[in-house]
């Protein structure tokens, strides 16, 4: 009963907000509807007409976004480790935000997969126990397992932490610590498994590389923290939850080192493929320089390289990194850079040329872009709502005894009071 009340009270928070909040929610809601429209259209006329996908390139921007979002989800571990393992107080204050980002990213991953399925109505076939999951043979089955487990962990841990806070108790380490350890393991797993999903295919030489797993992790640990740097600053400005400068500083340092490693690994791959110029290098040749006059992806990948190199320069110079403006610019550049590199620059060229040597180029259609924007908007909405629910508890304004002391009918109109208490 107490728990139900807790959830109910937290959920009511979603409906309390000012003009800025509602404008933001309305905007995201509109974009989500646009995405829904595009998806319904795709479902009605078939993916052949609404997307640019086809026999030669069956995976496009949906899977590209999926590969990127898995990285964002995994990066929460960069807050979880210092907060729960090393007990860094400043990070402990925002670790729940990291977990909320991770949970949101997992849901977005699932939505992107759904968008690319030919028969989404048969989704139950893929569920463990209910359907017939090809575990442990299929890497896609592994992905289903690890992403869902990681999602559940990232819902349970923050809920438990917030509930104890709401109840005014100290969280019991015997309950949360094993879960935290598990979530660290799964954070690494989701990205490794997703990399293996690609690298396990002997039929696609471009992906068939043992460095792909480490590359995925390195890029995740730069794009994820960069994402969090930006979001935490918004949280800091828009809510009463204050984010200390130390958190941003340590995240910026992680971003810098991870991006350096990521670029190094990309260079290593570049060398291996280009030095001996075998036929297996034709995909990377297509990606960076074009093949037989086809060069759709060339501007994409060089943009990504330029963005990442600029970002790594800013992040590696202490003076620039410690300047908020430059830091934010670097974060933006590298998020876009990694998005291109892990998405358009990794998923698409794997299919070009096809195993029979056909070069069929791909660029997302307007409907595919619509669906992606919609899923990003849904992600934005989920995060906004979850943040709205958690921040008041997090800052200690929203607590059982405070509520009941001040207001005997604490099922109603709580938030105004809560905010006053906090002030």
């Amino acid at each position, binding site marked *: 009963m107490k728990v139900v009340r807790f959830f109910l009270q937290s959920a009511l928070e979603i409906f309390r907000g000012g003009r800025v909040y509602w404008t933001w929610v309305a905007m995201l809601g509109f974009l989500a509807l646009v995405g829904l429209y595009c998806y319904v259209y795709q479902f*009605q*006329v*078939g*993916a*052949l*007409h609404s997307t640019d*996908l*086809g*026999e*030669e390139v*069956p*995976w496009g921007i949906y899977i590209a976004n999926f590969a990127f979002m898995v990285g964002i989800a995994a990066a929460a571990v960069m807050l979880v480790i210092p907060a729960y393992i090393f007990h860094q107080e400043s990070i402990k204050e925002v670790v729940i935000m990291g977990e909320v980002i991770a949970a949101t990213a997992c849901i977005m991953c699932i939505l992107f*997969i759904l968008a*690319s*399925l*030919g*028969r*989404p*109505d*048969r*989704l139950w*076939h*893929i569920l463990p126990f209910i*359907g*017939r*999951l*090809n575990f442990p*043979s*299929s*890497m*896609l*089955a592994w992905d*289903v397992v690890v992403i869902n487990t990681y999602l559940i962990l990232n819902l349970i841990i923050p809920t438990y932490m917030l509930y104890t806070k709401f109840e005014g108790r100290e969280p019991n380490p015997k309950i949360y610590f094993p879960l935290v350890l598990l979530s660290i393991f799964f954070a690494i797993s989701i990205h490794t498994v997703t990399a293996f999903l690609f690298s*396990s*295919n*002997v*039929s*696609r030489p471009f992906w068939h590389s043992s460095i792909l797993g480490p590359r995925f992790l390195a890029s995740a640990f730069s794009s994820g923290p960069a994402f969090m740097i930006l979001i935490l600053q918004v949280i800091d400005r828009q809510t009463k939850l204050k984010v200390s400068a130390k958190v941003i500083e340590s995240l910026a340092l992680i971003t810098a080192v991870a991006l350096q490693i990521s670029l190094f690994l990309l260079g290593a791959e570049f060398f291996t493929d280009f030095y001996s110029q075998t*036929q297996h290098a*034709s995909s990377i040749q297509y990606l960076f320089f074009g093949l*037989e006059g*086809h060069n759709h992806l060339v501007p994409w990948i060089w943009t990504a390289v330029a963005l990442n190199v600029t970002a790594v320069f800013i992040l590696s110079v202490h003076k620039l990194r410690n300047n908020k403006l430059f830091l934010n610019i670097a974060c933006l550049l590298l998020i876009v850079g990694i998005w291109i590199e892990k998405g358009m620059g990794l998923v698409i060229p*794997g299919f070009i*040329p*096809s*195993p*029979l*040597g*056909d*070069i*069929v*180029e791909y660029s997302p259609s307007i409907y595919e872009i619509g669906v992606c924007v919609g899923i990003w908007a849904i992600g934005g909405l989920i995060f906004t709502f979850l943040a709205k629910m958690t921040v008041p508890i997090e800052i200690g304004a929203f607590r059982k005894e405070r509520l009941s002391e001040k207001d005997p009918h604490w099922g109603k109109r709580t938030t105004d009071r809560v905010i006053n208490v906090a002030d």
Partner: protein
Amino acid sequence: MSDPNEQLPENSGSGSTKAISRRKFFKKASIAGATVAATTAMASTPVDGDAFTDAVQEFFQGHYQKMTKEEVADAIARLERKTKRKYGVDIQINNDPPLEGVLFGYALNISKCKGYRKCVTACMEENNTSRALQIQYIRVLEMDKGSMNIEESNHYYDSETVPQEGKMYLPIQCHHCENPPCVRACPTKATWKEDDGIVVIDYNWCIGCHYCVVACPYWARRFNWEDPDLPPEKINPVTHYLGNRPRERGVMEKCTFCVQRTRKGKLPACLEACPTGARVFGNLLDPNSEIRYILENKTVFRLKEELNTNPKFWYYTD
């Protein structure tokens, strides 16, 4: 009635650029038809109680390998009704299991193949594949003599003017690997290898994730991007549950060594159609079979052998 041969892509230019224009063409050609079909279907579907319960039961239908005999029989009856409703055609869906002591194998004489593509046409007619999408299980690669480089091959050549001077032809289809990467990849076990070596798909279980396409080194799997376009008068009514029964949008399909024929002791349609006698099909476990003779006495090779997929499809020369 048009000859399906006419619908084959006819061009002789470089494979890569033609591949694009061909795809764009089919997109445009079928978009009008598909949109009209989709809207009329929604407007005019009779609210037939039977159709509704069939749809519900089909949704909850289990995996083919997990269904009891009665459930399979029900599923088959449902599918036959569905085809009748959609195309107005009576079809029979049989359910022959693998024959005892049979392991199918295929061999193809590349010195005899001249690239006429009769196998492709016969395959499409036999297997009820979508005509608008031109779902072809067999691709005939045209290559320069003196090279066996698949990546440099072209499978969009003009089959009216073959054989071309200085070219060789290499048909490629599902190799029915002993160690199939597609089966390993499928997240729902919707595709598997039967005891007679045939790699099949349960079209009612596939969720259309494309992961098997990604995994296949022979590019042998086809996807129904669109509601299959199948003229009723062209439907081959003799079908198998795991073979040529009419498919649906959003699922994979592939060559099944004509399971509906070969499990009844007949030969695959592509073999019967081949004008040059380049194809040999048979039971690998029978020491007196022609295929065993070829494997033991001819110069045989397999494609991409280094991948250890162990195809049950061999090429040979005289």
